[in-house]
C-alpha cells in the first residue's frame, strides 16, 4: 500500500500525532516505526516552555483530559535531534506553535532550512495555553498561516480545533497559504482539570464535524481524534481523508500502529 499526502509518499496512512510521543527520542529507543507512515513530534516553540503545573492528565470515561501546556525545550534543543529524524525510515513533519507572528516567522525560517523535515504542521489550537489560541477568530488564523507561509515554502498543514461552522477558518487559513489541515486538536473539556479531551469518547463528535467538511469542500485532511482500532481508521478514511493520526491510543498500546496497519491489510 502506498499513500500520498500532498506529494509525500507514505508507506502507511497512520500518523503518530504530535504530543503523546514527545519528540520521539524516548519512544524510538524502545519501539520501531512499524505501521507508521509519518511521525509528528510534539509541538516545538521558539523558546523553551515549562508547561502547566501538575496535575496534567485525568482519565475520564473513554477519554483523557490533558493540560501539558506545550512543555518543550525550545526549537534549538529540538534541532539536536536531526540525527534521530534522519535515521527514521519514515518522513517527519514538524509541529510548531508561537505566541507572536514574529515567533511563527522565525520558526518557519528555521524549518525552511531543514531538508530532513517533510513539512510543517502549524498548531493553532492548543487548548491549554493562555492567550496563545490563534483559532478564536478568522483574522488571526489568516495572519498566523500567512506569516509561516512567508518563510516556509514547503508542505504546510494547519491544525484546527473542533468547532461548528469551521469553514470560514479553513478558508482563512487556505488564503493564508495552508496546503492541508489536521482536523482536529483535542476537545476543550473539564473534569478535575481543564484541558483537551482525547480518546474514543470524542470520535463520534469528530466524525460528524469532519463529515460535514469533507462533503462540502475538497481539501487534504489528516484526521485526528479518538482512533483506537482499525475500524476507527477505516471510518475516517471512508470520509476521504488522506491520513489518520493516532495519539492517545499509544498510551494503551505503544505498538498500536503496527497492529492496526497489519489489520488494515
Amino acid at each position, binding site marked *: 500500500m502506498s499513500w500520498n499526502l500532498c506529494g509525500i509518499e507514505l508507506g502507511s496512512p497512520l500518523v503518530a500525532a504530535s504530543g503523546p510521543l514527545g519528540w520521539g527520542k524516548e519512544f524510538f529507543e*524502545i519501539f520501531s516505526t512499524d505501521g507508521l507512515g509519518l511521525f509528528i513530534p510534539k509541538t516545538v516553540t521558539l523558546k523553551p516552555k515549562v508547561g502547566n503545573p501538575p496535575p496534567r492528565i485525568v482519565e475520564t470515561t473513554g477519554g483523557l483530559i490533558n493540560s501539558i501546556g506545550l512543555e518543550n525545550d525550545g526549537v534549538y534543543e529540538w534541532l539536536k535531534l536531526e540525527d534521530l529524524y534522519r535515521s527514521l525510515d519514515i518522513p517527519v513533519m514538524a509541529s510548531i506553535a508561537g505566541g507572536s507572528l514574529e515567533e511563527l516567522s522565525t520558526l518557519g525560517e528555521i524549518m525552511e532550512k531543514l531538508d530532513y523535515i517533510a513539512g510543517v504542521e502549524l498548531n493553532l489550537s492548543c487548548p491549554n495555553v493562555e492567550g496563545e489560541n490563534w483559532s478564536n477568530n478568522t483574522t488571526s488564523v489568516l495572519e498566523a498561516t500567512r506569516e509561516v507561509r512567508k518563510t516556509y515554502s514547503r508542505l504546510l498543514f494547519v491544525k484546527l480545533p473542533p468547532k461548528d461552522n469551521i469553514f470560514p477558518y479553513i478558508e482563512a487559513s487556505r488564503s493564508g497559504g495552508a496546503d492541508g489541515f489536521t482536523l482536529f486538536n483535542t476537545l476543550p473539556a473539564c473534569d478535575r482539570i481543564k484541558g483537551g479531551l482525547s480518546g474514543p469518547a470524542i470520535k463520534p463528535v469528530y466524525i460528524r464535524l469532519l463529515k460535514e467538511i469533507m462533503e462540502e469542500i475538497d481539501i487534504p485532511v489528516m484526521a485526528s481524534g479518538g482512533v483506537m482500532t482499525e475500524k476507527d481508521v477505516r471510518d475516517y478514511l471512508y470520509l476521504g481523508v488522506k491520513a489518520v493520526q493516532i495519539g492517545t491510543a499509544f*498510551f494503551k498500546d505503544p505498538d498500536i500502529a503496527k497492529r492496526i496497519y497489519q489489520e488494515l491489510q
Partner: protein
Amino acid sequence: MPEIYSGEVLENRSAGELFLLTVSIGKSIDIIPGQFFLIRIDREDTVLRRAFSIFDKNDDRLSFLYRVVGKGTGWLSERKTGYELNIFGPLGNGFSLVEGRSLLVGGGTGMAPLYYLGKNINGDVDFLLGAQRKTFWSEELLSRYRDIGNLELVTEDGSSGKKGLVTQYIKNACYTKVYACGPMEMLKSIDIDVPAEVSLESVIACGFGACRGCIVETVSGEYKRVCKDGPIFDLREISI
C-alpha cells in the same frame, strides 16, 4: 530496555485488603527494585494503563501487590488464572542500593516495592509498615516481610502494632539509608538526617518520559517526570 510482555496470570488473589498478582512472562529479566510496569486494562472505557511497582520477581514470574481503587484495578482483580495480561516494562529508574542497615518505610500500598527492595539489599533491613487497620494486611503477606527483615507495624486505629502514622516512628538510629513509599503527605513529613529515597506515585500515561503528563514539582521549582526521572527521588528533591 523495557518491552511489552504477555503475562499469563498464575495467581491473583486477595491478601488482606490487597491483591497479590503473579504472572509468568516466559523469560527472566533484570529489574531494579523500585521500577514499575504498566499493565493494560482491556476495557473500552479506559485509555491509560495502570502502573504497578514490582513487588517480587522469581525467574520468569513477576508479582504485584495492589489495592482495588477504581475501574482499572477492579478489572484487574477479576482476572482469573490463565488470562494473558499485556505488561509493559520495566520502567523508571529504581532505588539505588547501598550496603549497611536500611529502614524501609511503607504507607498503605506503599509497602509493595519494599519487599523486592528488601530482598536485594545487602545488609540488615528494618521494615516499618503502616495502614489504617490490622485487616489491611494478611498474616501470610506480613510473614514474607518478616522472612527478610525486622518488621514493625503501625495502624491508625491501633488495632495492630503501634498506633498512629508511620512517620511518627521513624528513628534516625544508625541507618545507612532510608527508603520510603506512600502518599505524598507521608513522604513530605519524613524528617531525618540520613540519606533517603522515596518512590512517588502519579497518573502515568506513556511511562517512558515522552508525554510529560506525570510531572512533579521539585523543591527547586523544576518539573521532573515521575515515570522517567523517577519514580524514585532523593527525599530532598521533593521535601525541604
